[in-house]
Each structure stands twice: as structure tokens, then as C-alpha cells.
């Protein structure tokens, strides 16, 4: 867990002066930051700071009232979540959002959705080729299952799995999309130490082996300082710190926010 990948590469995603409110609640105010290709970028901050809202803006669930988001050099407006997915953005959720009625395998298969070509009518007309395609994707999914070491629960309906494993399946579903940018919302929340270590290892491996850019929200400071290349700090919707882990750790505003926020 000590190895670090420092990639001073080009900017993959640029957020400029975005603001987002829900009625009177200002979830994000005038925040700018960027995510560089190949890095592990952490977003931290006390509860209600606007971290999840930020991810929701990036993958198109929310549309900020002000500001712009530029992804891969393209400015986008009012992007829908499935369009974000089509451009290579995958994510997991703070409160595990799996398809509870389906097995682990089927859940991860849904992650292949955009990679599968045959549509409604073609799969009716050319049943055979649709089934062949299904098998190819199945192979890819099996690789992910091996990678995440969840072979034993392949056919288990996910609703019955313990929380830690559900989070792992959710990561698998996001990976199945072969994302360029992977957004992880508190991937280690509610896990025990051993599960956290596994999850850290997976995140680092994904970043290392596939070069996937990762943006994660995490409350465990130890983990954040350990695995991330750069850290952005939000408090009450505003940005109060941004930089290398060491810089952020010694930033007085950040220390105050955390002490004041009861952490």
C-alpha cells in the first residue's frame, strides 16, 4: 500500500467555477479543480461538504447551475448519465446501489451494457450471433471476477451478500465498463481493516495495470494519504485545500475544518 503512481500527465477532467444549489441549500459553491490522466485523486471533507454532489455533477446526475465541466477537452452542458457512461465515466455509490434481484455475475454483466452491440431487433433476428457476443463479454466479466477474488459468489443474488462483498461487486460492475475515469464514493466505508486493505490493493492495481484514472471520496485519512496522488478538500460546498497529501495535511484551514466538524 505504499507504492505510488505519480503521473504529471495531461488534464482529463476540468471543473471550472461550478455552483450547485437545491433550493436554499448550496451544495457546491464556486469550486474549480482538475483530474489528471492516470492519477488517483481524492476528495475529502466533513459530512455534507458536497463531495457526493461533486461526483454527481461529473457523471451527469446533477447539472450545476453555474460553471463548466470539460472532459477530454470537450466542454459539456446538461450531459445525461448514460452519455457520461458512454464517454468512459463509471462509478460506484456511497450507499451501495446494486441490482438486488440479480446475481453477482449478472450485476457485473450490466456493466458491459455499452460494450455490447446487438440491440433489441438484431438480437431477435440474429439470435446466434447475439449469444456469441454474450459469451465474449461473459469471458471479460469472469476475468474481473477472478481479479476481485469473488469466484465463490458468482451465482449468489447480491441482496444476500455481506456489505463488504457488495461494495466489491459494485466495483466490479464499474470496472466491466472499462472506464477511463472511475468515480468511487466512499469505497471503504463500513469495512473492517482486512476488507479495507483488499479494497486499497484493488484500487491501486486497477490504476497501475489498466492506467485507469480514479477519483475517490474517502473518510479514512490513513487510506487517503496512502493511496492518492493529490487531494482536494471541500467544506460547506467550498474548496478549502488542494494539493499533495502532505500539503493538505498541514493546511491550517483543513485542520480547522476537521476539528470544527467534529472529526
Amino acid at each position, binding site marked *: 500500500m505504499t507504492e505510488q503512481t505519480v503521473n504529471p500527465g495531461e488534464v482529463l477532467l476540468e471543473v471550472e467555477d461550478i455552483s450547485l444549489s437545491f433550493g436554499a441549500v448550496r451544495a457546491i459553491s464556486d469550486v474549480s479543480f482538475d483530474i489528471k490522466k492516470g492519477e488517483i485523486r481524492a476528495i475529502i471533507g466533513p459530512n455534507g461538504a458536497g463531495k457526493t454532489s461533486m461526483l454527481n455533477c461529473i457523471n451527469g446526475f446533477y447539472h450545476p447551475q453555474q460553471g463548466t465541466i470539460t472532459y477530454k477537452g470537450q466542454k459539456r452542458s446538461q450531459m445525461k448519465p448514460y452519455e457520461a457512461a458512454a464517454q468512459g465515466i463509471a462509478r460506484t455509490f456511497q450507499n451501495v446501489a446494486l441490482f438486488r434481484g440479480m446475481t453477482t455475475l449478472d450485476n457485473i454483466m450490466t456493466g458491459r*451494457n455499452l460494450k455490447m452491440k446487438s440491440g433489441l431487433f438484431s438480437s431477435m433476428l440474429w439470435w446466434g450471433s447475439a449469444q456469441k457476443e454474450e459469451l465474449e463479454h461473459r469471458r471479460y466479466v469472469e476475468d474481473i471476477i477472478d481479479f476481485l477474488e469473488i469466484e465463490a459468489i458468482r451465482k449468489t443474488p447480491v441482496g444476500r451478500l455481506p456489505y463488504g462483498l457488495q461494495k466489491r461487486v459494485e466495483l466490479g460492475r464499474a470496472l466491466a465498463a472499462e472506464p477511463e475515469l472511475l468515480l468511487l464514493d466512499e469505497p471503504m466505508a463500513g469495512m473492517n481493516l482486512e476488507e479495507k486493505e483488499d479494497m486499497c490493493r484493488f484500487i491501486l492495481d486497477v490504476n497501475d495495470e489498466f492506467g485507469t484514472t480514479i477519483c475517490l471520496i474517502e473518510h479514512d485519512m490513513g487510506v487517503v494519504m496512502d493511496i492518492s496522488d493529490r487531494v482536494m478538500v471541500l467544506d460547506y460546498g467550498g474548496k478549502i485545500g488542494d494539493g499533495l497529501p502532505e500539503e493538505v495535511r498541514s493546511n491550517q484551514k483543513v485542520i480547522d475544518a476537521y476539528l470544527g466538524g467534529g472529526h
Partner: protein
Amino acid sequence: MLDFLFFVEVLLSGLLTGALYSLVALGFVLIFKASGVFNFAQGAMMLFAALSLVGVQEMLGVHWTIAFIITVGIMIALAWCVEKFVLGKLVNQEPIILFMATIGVTFFLDGFGQTIWGSDIKILDIGLPNGAFDVGGVFIDQLELVAGLTAGALVIILAIFFNKTKIGRALRAVADDHQAAMSVGISLRYIWIVVWTVAGLVGLVAGIMWGSKLGVQFSLSLIALKALPVLMLGGFTSIPGAIVGGLIIGAGEKLAEIYVGDLVGGAIENWFAYMLAMVFLLFRPQGLFGEKIIERV
């Protein structure tokens, strides 16, 4: 012996009628599963589909297969319109609001259908066999048999569709979690159009069967009310539930009519289904195969 044969005959006829109830119920289940909306308009869609089929056939004077294909097109267009002008505008609203919207769709379809295709009873004849035949002393109505087999085939096709295809998986995904489904690149709009289309096609098939039996008339849309007890019995989210529920209601009401009806002065067929469903609800509120109904309704 004769009594027994008669019993079998009644039972069989009940089951086959039940298969038709199942078809109607199936349309409800599909939409409820995918969007959490109780589609009040399912009956109206069935009537509209049958009216369109007959109307197109009369107007263009074409073979019924051509009219069928055109009607399929009409049902796809209808699904698109419902998404575009009704549901799409009401994303994230309370289920009760969506339910009200489908009541609106019902009145629109009933009115619109009659405006274009007229309001008199129409005969729907696509050459389905009529009359009964005799199997070892048991008389089976041919039309009912065809209807039963069609319902069975449709269920098998839907099961394969849901379990073996990408879109089927996407449909189940949307039924389970909207946000997660969108995050893997599933477009809710597209899925809703697909479910409403499939529900429309199921309505079309049901409409053809009922229309061949009773003629295409306004009361067809009331048959949808018979699907309510079927849904209570089978659960609102279960396809097997819709099938089994339909069969139980169909067989139950025929048997009750014949064997209990006289004791209580007849006409039991009209309310037996509801009573059966109510009694059943007391013991199993989620239905035979239903899941989490308390959470959703």
C-alpha cells in the same frame, strides 16, 4: 364418470379463460416492474390495439397479417408518445402522480380510439377456429385453446427476452435501481419506450383473443379490471405470478359459478374473483410470488 368429465371440462375452460386474464395482467406487471407505475391504461391499450387492428384492416382492405404489422408500428409510436409527452415530463414524481397520469392516458386512448375508428362493435376475424371439439367426452373450445397456447408461447418468449438478452438485463436493472442503471449507461427513456411497447404488444395479443371472443367493443377495456384480482393474487412484480394468478382466477370463477352459483342464486362469476383475491390478501399480502410490494405502492 359423467360428472367427472363435466368437471374436467369446466376446469379446462376456466384455465383457458384464465390464460387470457394472465395476458392482461402481464401487461400491468411489465410496466410496474420497470417503472414502478401502476398502468391504469393497460385495458385501454388493449382496446386501442384491437380497434386499430380492425380499423386498419377495414380501411386498407389488407390481410390481417399486414394490419397486424401496422398495428405493431402504432403501438411503438404510442409507447414513444407516452414517454415523450407524459412519463418523461414526470420523472422523479410520486407514484400516485404517475398513476394519475396513466388515468389520463386511459381517457385519451378511449376517446381517441373511438374518434378515429368509430364506437360501434366491430367483428374481429383473423381466422381463429371456432366451436368446440371432443376429446374423449370432454369438450374443448377451440378459440379458448388457441388463446391458452398463445398466452403460453408469449410467456416463454418474454422469459427468454428477460433472462437472455442485453435489453432484458437492462430492464431488470432499471426495475431494481434507476440510478445504478443510468450509471452503467442505460437510458431510462429508451427502456421505458421498450417496456411500454412490449406491454402494448401484449395488449395487442390479448385484444385479438378477447376481441375474437366478444367482438371489439368498449367493454374490452373493462376486462382489465379482471386483471386486478389476478395481480393481487400473483403479486404486482412477478411474471409467473401473473400467469398462475390468472389460471387460479379463471378456473376458480368457472368452478364456483357451476358448483356454488346455484346455492347462492347465481351470478357469482362477477364478484368471485375479487372475493378470492381479498381472502388471499389477508394471508399473503405480497401475493404468491410478489416481492417488496409494501415498499413500492
